[in-house]
């Protein structure tokens, strides 16, 4: 596993502060989305508490608007880092008419955002990996310098689509990054029930590409590794696979009860490796952040999400006729 322990590069403190802020905003937003479900105000929630370093760290390595991004349902942090407003994510949670990703048609956290080259994922596991290979194929044929990153859990790597997509990308040397957020569980099934290997990254070798396992709770390591990998892809040396080891704190989705398959002690142990605490401590130690500034970041995030929830919940619902629109492209 790669972990960096370099001093922060000079002149980059704003970038790291911005990453930190987005990780905090993502956490506050995710916590709130789950709470709204528990209060009966949202039908469904799926969130990524615990994955913030993997999500925000990797997204900060992208050229937003040029690179293609295929997130999966847990990637609140990726979208926040790309600049999607919490208000817009909440419109999706409440299935409102103004939900910019689907107008209330798609499940929450299945984002489409063409300006940022974000393509809605399939709820059906792993189906977006072949899409990523195809997008990267197009980029290559069209001679464009963009890279595609596709996100998924370790559970998705059991599906045929994972293997078919990686193999296809490897054959054609496509500029695509397969980014696995390995949180050790596919709903209730721990990794041992899913695969007979320790590291998903080891699967890459079987297809003739490079795979790297990183500490997914260390935002700086994730950022550096993803940057390097994306650079390689841009130079035509892709595809690559990154496995970010992490842990999810919340149940799988709002329909799950995680006490049925994992201990509170295990959860407790991982909260001690919290990715946000980790970056904060690092920034405090390096003098990039002060306790006061940290307090201000957290308070601002709370305020932002409070206001966004208020406004999004009051936004208008889609009219019933919307159910029949956009079935065929002629319906636009």
């Amino acid at each position, binding site marked *: 596993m790669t972990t960096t322990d370099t001093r922060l590069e000079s002149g980059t403190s704003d970038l790291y502060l911005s990453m930190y802020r987005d990780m905090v905003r993502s956490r506050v937003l995710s916590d709130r989305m789950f709470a709204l479900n528990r209060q009966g105000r949202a039908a469904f929630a799926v969130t990524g508490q615990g994955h913030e370093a993997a999500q925000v760290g990797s997204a900060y390595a992208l050229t937003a608007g040029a690179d293609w991004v295929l997130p999966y349902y847990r990637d609140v942090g990726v979208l926040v880092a790309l600049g999607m407003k919490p208000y817009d994510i909440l419109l999706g949670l409440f*299935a409102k008419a103004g939900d910019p990703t689907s107008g209330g048609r798609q499940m929450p956290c299945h984002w489409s955002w063409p300006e940022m080259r974000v393509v809605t994922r399939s709820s059906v596991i792993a189906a977006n990996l072949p899409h990523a290979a195809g997008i990267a194929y197009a980029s290559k044929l069209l001679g464009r310098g963009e890279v595609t990153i596709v996100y998924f859990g370790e559970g998705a790597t059991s599906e045929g689509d994972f293997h078919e997509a990686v193999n296809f990308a490897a054959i054609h040397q496509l500029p695509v990054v397969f980014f696995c957020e390995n949180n050790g569980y596919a709903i209730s*099934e721990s990794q041992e029930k899913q*695969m007979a290997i320790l590291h998903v990254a080891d699967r890459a070798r079987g297809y003739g590409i490079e795979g790297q396992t990183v500490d997914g709770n260390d935002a700086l390591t994730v950022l550096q590794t993803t940057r390097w990998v994306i650079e390689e892809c841009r130079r035509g040396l892709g595809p690559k696979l990154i496995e970010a080891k992490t842990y999810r704190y919340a149940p799988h989705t709002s329909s799950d009860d995680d006490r049925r398959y994992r201990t509170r002690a295990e959860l407790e142990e991982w909260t001690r490796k919290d990715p946000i605490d980790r970056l904060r401590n690092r920034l405090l130690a390096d003098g990039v952040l002060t306790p006061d500034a940290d307090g201000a970041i957290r308070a601002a995030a709370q305020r932002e999400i409070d206001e966004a929830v208020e406004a999004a919940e009051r936004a208008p619902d889609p009219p019933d006729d919307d*159910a029949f629109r956009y079935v065929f492209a002629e319906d636009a």
Partner: protein
Amino acid sequence: MPEITYREAIRQALRYQLQNDERVFLMGEDIGAYGGSYAVTKGFLDEFGEHRVKDTPIAESVVVGAGIGAAMAGLKPMVELMTINFSLLAIDQIVNNASKLYYMSNGQINVPLVIRMAGGAGSQLGAQHSHSLESWYAHVPGIKVVVPSTPYDAKGLLMTAFDDENTVIFIEHTALYASKGEVPEDGYRVPFGKLQVFRPGADVTLIGYSGSLHQAFRAAERMAQEGIEAEVLNLRTLRPLDVDGILASVRKTHRAVVIEDDWKFGGFAGEIAAIIQEQAFDDLDAPVMRCSGSDVPMPYAAALEQAALPQEDGIISLAKRIVGGRA
């Protein structure tokens, strides 16, 4: 007779099979410690052990494919595919393999496999989690398609599925798991291909199955208050289909409405309508009507989803239209 839920009825059949037939084993995603996405196998891992209750990776094709292999080798597997939506990742194994190995091997190798999956909409799970694709499976010769609508049927039909020498697709409706009904404690069977007259009536036949049976029944009860007596048929299995039972009812009422959650275009209601007009045209006083889901991917927002699904009011207005002056 004890009153139990649809979920509990399915559990009883599975427990009965695990206890009484050592060839039976279960496999699927999250069916072990978790007890299944719909809590159908809760506690089974502790009771029957890991060899008989197997968690699988998220890999539907190998789950069904390995089930086919184990069945060919003499075991009696039951595979759970979570939902009909994910069965699409195993459709090659089901349609190209399970359904025709017997035929292609000149009757030498059969595949006695039970494939359970939850289907249906109405729970705000969006376009990819809300399919009613039973008509696709019913379309394929060589597999049987079971669509229970009550706890009694769920247990009795699942028992019959395990007796069957073919692959059986057993589709449970997500909205019915908590519904209750009387269920005998013994290992009774409900035969395939025999519909149930769920409510007798003389004015119009309402044909339903799985979730739509209940909508048809509620519509019939409302129409009764206005003097229209609808006969409600519970199909129980789509393949084999009880054609005689359908025709007998239509010959009595001379009118029929078929209700299904599925899309109208190319759906199973169209098949039933075709059978009726082919075989009972002279008995009909009106065209056979279909009350189906709208031809759209299922939207997520609650109101949009209801707008896309068949509703009782729609059944009643279609029924009244063909009953005409009768009431």
